[in-house]
């Protein structure tokens, strides 16, 4: 109803026509809808009773905030399957897959319009930005009954054979009571391929049904990563999502649908909205290396770094670390979060000053590796 927020621009556009080509190549849409305020959106290719329907998804996302010079190591995009029947895979012919496509050119990244159907990447063979997800690998299950797991929590029984894991989600829809059942619950224990315990207390006498769904993870390729915007003035990364038959312009078989439903951002009350994880390599201010000639394990040493940065440590901390050769990890020694920019400060720490074993911090050649880094700045 009342909101301070104009809109996020994610959702779906749909074209329907009496031939595959007419639906696929539609620019002036006569049978269409679009949606920018609903909880769920769909990607689909379908044929039913002589009508072909294609639905394309749009996922603009503000990715400003990454330093312009930062190196992106990897990125993954996540969609949570919607409730109801989140998946249809009628035409399992090898072209039944989903992928992130781009870059979309919807008229506005904060709204989606009826004329955006043909703005979801190239109409034929759009550039794919991630590893394809075959529909047959997408897990979901339906439940029609539940019981006490013996510890006072709900154990659901699946009607299908998809195997869920601890941490996957189940959406319960109680037909009558209790209200607390309705919504997302986490799988806490897998008893076998069809019985799962959930993190919700069991109530005797209630009747429920539900669906189990999981996050779908799109692993971006180098092209998809290159689409990620870092600039404040042009902040939107413009992802689309399309079904395989639609991408390669291959008609879906008569009478079938390949469809996937996901949660959009607009009306979600929880954390089931889409998100993008970007792994960024931090900017290293300096590396230091120091020879070490141990007298005995009881002998410690001091590591000191002195310098300055043009990015305030209060915005991005400056961290001194030492390499642990046993665990192959960097260990924090000290950090600065308060010094002024362009002003010298010091990071210092003792290793082994209390007589502890320091052998993990040098290799067989007695090399110690330390580094100082900051996520940005110079």
């Amino acid at each position, binding site marked *: *109803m*009342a*909101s*301070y*927020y*104009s*809109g*996020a621009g*994610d959702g779906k556009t749909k074209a329907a026509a009496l031939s595959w080509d007419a639906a696929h190549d539609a620019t002036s849409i006569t049978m269409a809808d679009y949606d920018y*305020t*609903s909880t769920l959106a769909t990607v689909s290719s379908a044929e039913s009773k002589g009508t072909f329907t294609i639905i394309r998804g749009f*996922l*603009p*996302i*503000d*990715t*400003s*905030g*990454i330093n312009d010079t930062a190196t992106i*190591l990897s990125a993954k995009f996540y969609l949570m399957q919607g409730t*109801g*029947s989140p998946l249809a895979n009628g035409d399992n012919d090898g072209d039944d897959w989903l992928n992130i496509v781009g870059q979309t050119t919807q008229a506005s990244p904060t709204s989606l319009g009826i004329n955006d159907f043909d703005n979801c990447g190239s109409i034929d063979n759009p550039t794919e930005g991630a590893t394809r997800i075959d529909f047959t690998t997408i897990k979901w299950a339906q439940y029609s009954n539940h019981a006490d797991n013996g510890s006072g929590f709900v154990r659901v029984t699946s009607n299908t054979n998809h195997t869920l894991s601890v941490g996957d989600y189940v*959406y*319960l*829809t109680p037909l009558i009571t209790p*209200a*607390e059942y*309705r*919504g997302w*619950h986490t799988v806490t224990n897998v008893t076998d391929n069809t019985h799962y315990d959930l993190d919700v207390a069991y109530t005797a006498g209630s009747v429920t049904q539900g669906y189990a769904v999981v996050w779908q993870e799109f692993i971006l390729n180098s092209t998809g990563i290159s689409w990620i915007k870092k600039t404040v003035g042009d902040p939107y990364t413009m992802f689309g999502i399309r079904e395989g038959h639609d991408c390669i312009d291959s008609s879906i078989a008569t009478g079938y649908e390949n469809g996937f*439903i996901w949660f*959009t*951002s*607009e*009306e*979600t*009350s*929880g954390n089931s*909205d*889409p*998100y*993008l*994880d*970007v*792994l*960024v*390599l*931090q900017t*290293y201010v300096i590396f230091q290396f120091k020879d070490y000639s141990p007298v005995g394990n009881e002998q410690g040493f001091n590591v000191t770094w002195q310098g300055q940065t043009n990015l305030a440590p*209060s*915005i*991005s*901390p400056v*961290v001194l*670390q030492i390499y642990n050769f046993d665990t192959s990890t*960097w260990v*924090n020694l000290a950090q600065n979060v308060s010094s002024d920019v362009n002003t010298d400060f010091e990071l210092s720490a003792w290793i082994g000053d209390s007589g502890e074993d320091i052998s993990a911090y040098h290799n067989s050649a007695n090399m110690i590796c330390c*580094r100082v*880094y900051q*996520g940005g700045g110079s």
Partner: protein
Amino acid sequence: MQEITSKRGWNRKVFDNGDGTQLYRFRVRHCHYKDDSGNFQDIDPRLTFDNTAKKWKHNKSSYSCEIPEYADEEMDFRTKYEGANFNAKFKASSASHILGEYVENGEGNYILYTNAFGTGIDLRIYSYWKGIKKVVVARVQPTIQQIQKFNYELILPNNEDVLVDDTTWDKNSTLNARGKRIKIKDSNNKLIWFNQAHIYDSNTPPWSATLDIELTKLANKYLIKKNIGVDVPVADLVYPVYLEL
């Protein structure tokens, strides 16, 4: 993995992995609001009851709200997001005097007024990340008389402009906004958005449609009226049926 709170944005969290890399997590929607000091904080729209004001409240988002103790009382919405200075009041004037109860589950946070519009017809007021949302939940098929009670009163203390499709409404005639979004321009020329009104049922997949919304200017307030037209197959829907405004 430790969050670097100084790197938060409206839709962004940044985590230090401790290995020289940082994980940026971007949500499509906002996950933060700015507090009075201008620092980003986690949005938390859960409601608590103010015993003095007799209202359900929260102020941990880019807006604040006061949701009434009883269904037929006034609710308040206000925001100062990015320079806005907006306040509106709503009232389900035809609802019964039903005490609300707080519900927090997988569907979100809301005040439930059971049977607010008669037996089997509830009112829910949701508080969520971007605003408040009124939902009439018909657990049974409503009568014509019950449907006519779903209206709302809107009070704009500053008599702001009302727009549909970027056209300012003259307020002299009844405004029909089916399938469109109503916007209100505050005194700082900032826009406040009303969602499209829509209806959906409990079928799988749900049947859904947009609803006719009419806005009529009265003496010192507006009447928001939901019209359930002949294109809504009331008798064939799977209940509960949800009407959102």
